């Protein structure tokens, strides 16, 4: 893929589309939602400063960058607070904080590659083909990861769906 330097407008569009999903993704590495948000912000700050030349698809790049930044934050010992229902990363449409918290916990328990596929697909609105292109994993592998991830999440969220 060709290298590209994004304009400020393109960075903002990327942020609008993927920002919330990236916060959810980052929060599966660092449990503190504020830190997850800081991580995403730092990545986009660097993009805005136009110092980054993207060697790949923008979505793939920001996911990789957020992952690395979140892992660095975790290594630096940024506080790892217990999940708080009031300040979780997710909000449920019907306002069920317990379900939202369970989802956040379940996501962070998924293997990294499965978690990535689910977040990209559900909250970044990417097709599995796009996820495949972004992650560099074959389409069939991505599909399997997605299927396994959904099965695990379904199991964890079953009590809330029944109620």
């Amino acid at each position, binding site marked *: 893929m060709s290298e590209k330097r994004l304009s400020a407008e393109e*960075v903002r569009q990327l942020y609008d589309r993927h920002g*919330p999903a990236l916060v959810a993704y980052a929060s599966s590495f660092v449990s503190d939602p504020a830190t997850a948000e800081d991580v995403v912000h730092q990545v986009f700050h660097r993009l*805005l*400063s*136009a110092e980054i030349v993207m060697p790949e698809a923008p979505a793939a790049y920001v996911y990789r960058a957020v992952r690395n930044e979140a892992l660095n934050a975790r290594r630096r010992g940024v506080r790892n607070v217990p999940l708080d229902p009031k300040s979780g990363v997710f909000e*449920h449409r019907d306002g069920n904080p317990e379900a939202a918290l369970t989802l956040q916990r379940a996501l962070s328990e998924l293997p990294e590659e499965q978690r990535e596929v689910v977040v990209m697909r*559900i909250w970044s609105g990417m097709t599995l083909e796009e996820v495949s292109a972004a992650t560099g994993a074959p389409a069939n592998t991505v599909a399997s990861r997605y*299927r396994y991830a*959904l099965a695990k999440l379904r199991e964890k*969220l079953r009590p809330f769906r029944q109620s």
Partner: protein
Amino acid sequence: MEDYDEQFEKYLAEFRPRRPRALPDPINTHRVWPRRLAAVAAIAVALGASPWFSRANNSKDKDSVVKNVNVIPDIKREPPKLSLVTVTQMALKDPDQLDAQLTEASRRMLPDFRGSDSTLRVLAKE
């Protein structure tokens, strides 16, 4: 791609991740201000350091001359180098001394035309 549990996908989509705070608006200020500040700081340091450097050089020259005079009395005493700052200070304090210094400096720095083997005589002969 396979057909997945669409209902469960829809259920998951009911959870919305929190929207992060907005990105800062004036992007360019991040890039321009540090450079401007650095440039201003560099100029300020250069301006502040130049008198100090010239004084330091002058005092160093004087010291070395004094030492040389003590050790080897025959060596000619080299006059201090003239910087823009010292010349300005001298012009304000003692114009006569400035004239003397400039005359002496011109003898050292300009080609000598008085001696038998001066540059001008050599050129004239050619």
